[in-house]
């Protein structure tokens, strides 16, 4: 049992550190430090920067154009990235469909889709949730009817992130309505330019547009874009859900960025003759969060080590998702608290409408509001607890 890196790993760490130092501009760094989601163009630019260095797909095997890194290298990469206030990569193509394509896809599908995911020339959206199928994905209703060489898809998806800019959507559809629930569900790769697709923006509570409703009205999808076997889409979907939680594990490393921002903020706030950061109560709450983050970090490291050793890490991925999202919410709550009355400044109005606000506003409030989503998406924390209780505790 040890936490030491090998000489090779240390060398890789230095390489990664140098890469981030050279490639994360002060502007991008500042942008990341606002704590809010990047714009698609920013994500794409960063992905191209990584691709230029051969680091487009840190979790993919080399044979599919990935870096072929060990889990430890991936951990080093992610922690150096977080340390440098570099952006996270946008994950839906890279983590949620890419691995399915290289695992279950045909050679043609791999060739057609994988390079564009790495280069971010394609932007993938996830078409899973439906108005009546949120936590209960297996009850989804979007129909795909075979018609010659095509499926004709009709239905409605919701909470589709960035559908407004996506070039493609991977989509769970029902190809057989005679069987129950999970059976009869297939996974289609759909070109967003197809006729019959309509995207309706949904404004979220942070007043931003990143999710959508997607209406599919007799959309014709070539049978060649069926992923894997008909009726087995559900099983691939479960792999996706598991990977999505894996992402949450890496996200844990990013919490440190928020803590740095909260500390900077609190340091600048005066309470009497002290800075807020030096008041006992505030600092104690922050310390509590930081300590819980250490626990999260080491739970993540143990999960990583299990991955290196090829072991099943049991329910720890779900636990990480729960703990990470709860901590993110508490950090952003503390951030809003630190800002004091400034939190009321969401936007200028009147003659200087649209101009930026002072003191990093409204980022703390936007981050706080956006963080409310993290205990809901990717399998709500209630669902995660159900899953742990059933699968791991046998209840």
């Amino acid at each position, binding site marked *: 049992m040890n936490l030491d890196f090998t000489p090779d790993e240390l060398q890789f760490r230095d390489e990664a550190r140098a890469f981030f130092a050279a490639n994360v501009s002060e502007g991008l760094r500042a942008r990341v430090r606002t704590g809010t989601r990047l714009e698609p163009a920013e994500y794409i630019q960063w992905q191209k920067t990584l691709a230029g260095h051969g680091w487009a797909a840190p979790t993919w095997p080399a044979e599919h154009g990935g870096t072929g890194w060990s889990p430890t290298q991936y951990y080093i990469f992610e922690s150096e990235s977080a340390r440098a206030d570099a952006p996270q990569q946008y994950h839906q193509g890279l983590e949620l469909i890419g691995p399915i394509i290289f695992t279950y896809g045909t050679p043609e599908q791999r060739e057609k889709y994988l390079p564009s995911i790495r280069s971010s020339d394609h932007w993938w959206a996830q078409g899973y949730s439906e108005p009546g199928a949120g936590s209960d994905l297996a009850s989804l209703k979007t129909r795909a009817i075979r018609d010659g060489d095509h499926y004709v898809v009709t239905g409605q998806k919701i909470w589709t992130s960035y559908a407004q800019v996506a070039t493609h959507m991977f989509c769970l559809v029902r190809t057989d309505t005679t069987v129950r629930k999970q059976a009869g569900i297939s996974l289609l790769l759909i070109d967003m330019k197809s006729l019959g697709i309509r995207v309706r923006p949904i404004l979220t*509570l942070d007043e931003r547009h990143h999710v959508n409703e997607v209406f599919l009205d007799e959309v014709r999808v070539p049978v060649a874009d069926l992923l894997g076997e008909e009726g087995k889409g559900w099983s691939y979907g479960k792999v996706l859900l598991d990977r999505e939680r894996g992402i949450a594990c890496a996200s844990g490393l990013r919490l440190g960025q928020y803590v740095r921002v909260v500390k900077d903020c609190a340091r600048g706030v005066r309470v009497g003759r002290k800075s807020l950061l030096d008041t006992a109560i505030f600092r104690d709450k922050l310390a509590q969060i930081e300590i819980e983050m250490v626990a999260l970090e080491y739970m993540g490291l143990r999960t990583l080590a299990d991955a290196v050793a090829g072991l099943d890490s049991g329910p720890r991925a779900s636990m990480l998702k729960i703990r990470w999202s709860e901590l993110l919410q508490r950090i952003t709550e503390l951030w809003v608290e630190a800002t004091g009355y400034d*939190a009321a400044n969401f936007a200028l109005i009147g003659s200087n409408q649209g101009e930026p606000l002072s003191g990093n506003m409204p980022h703390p*409030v936007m981050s706080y509001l956006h963080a409310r989503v993290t205990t809901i998406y990717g399998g709500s924390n209630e669902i995660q607890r159900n899953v742990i209780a059933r699968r791991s505790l046998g209840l």
Partner: protein
Amino acid sequence: MDFALTPEQHQLQNSVARFGREYGDFAAWRRMVAAGHAFDTGNWRHMAELGWLGIAIPERDGGLGGTPVDTMVVMEGIGCSLALEPFVSSCVLAPALLAGAPVAVRETLLPGIAAGEVFVTLAQAEPNGRFDLSHVETIAVPHGGGHVLTGIKSHVMDGATADWFVVPARTRGEMDDTDGITLFLVAADAAGLVRENMRGPDHRHNARLTLDGVAATALLGSLHDGLAVLERAVDAAIAARLAEAVGAMDALRDMTLDYLKTRQQFGVAIGSFQALQHRMVDISTACEEARSMTYQAVLSLSLPRLARRRAISAAKARVGQTGMFVGHQAVQLHGGIGTSDELAVSHYLKRLLMIDLSFGNADHHRALFTLAEDSLALEMAA
């Protein structure tokens, strides 16, 4: 000892509820907000006609001379319907701040407030003051028989639409001294006053003021001695604000319970899941706590200072916490749809967030509670 409303208060409550049904349409609210309005002027006129705007104004000044309980009844309705009207600032806080003002000032402002034609608010918070009422850096210096004011007031609730500001400024002493604070009346269009307007996440229109040698229209109350009036007025405003929180919390509780009963997942209503049931019970308990705390806050306004301060700070801290709990859980239990701007749920959360912050957050009021508690103990011992 009873917690019942008088028949007149019941009537007021019914009238508030009717008003909510007539004007409290969320789709209309969203359209109004999208159009950039600070609030609904039609609503405001109607409130004035119903006499509500004068409830906290003495009869001699053209008001109804109502009690804090009357104010509470109105504020619950406002909270319930997410109304953005500047009731607390103009109709609760301002009249209390003007309690010791010269007759001429009272005659000019108070009937106008009651009629809904004049808007007054408090410009207290300063950049380095956090939530401390005695932190006043803004300076008032005598000039031509009056005073001119220089300083920054960084967060002025409902400040974007106010005609007048009550501005605490320092007439003697050091930054955090309790002595030497004087209240002044400043016109929104006074020379040397720069107003930046900002909307909150809750769509309220607030302002930041920069005063550079602004001539005060009047000195309110007595020189150097403004803190006691300020503190008392803020306590009355807090009590009103908490009633708003109670209204908002009850609304969230009701819509969340309704959602649990109707939303189907896994073939059943999600309200059949025990973990969600227990959460819903905790939401309901939080609403009961907030209501109880608000009653004791409202009823404390006539008590001696320390008892009042203890009660108000206890209530402000706890209603803030329970309000955030209910807001967060309402979003969580609604799931994805709860995070949509199109549904009212998250707007209530944002309003509760701003209420938790207003007049100082829970940490601040726990500290004030302890101060009051210790002083009361000393008093008791003496």
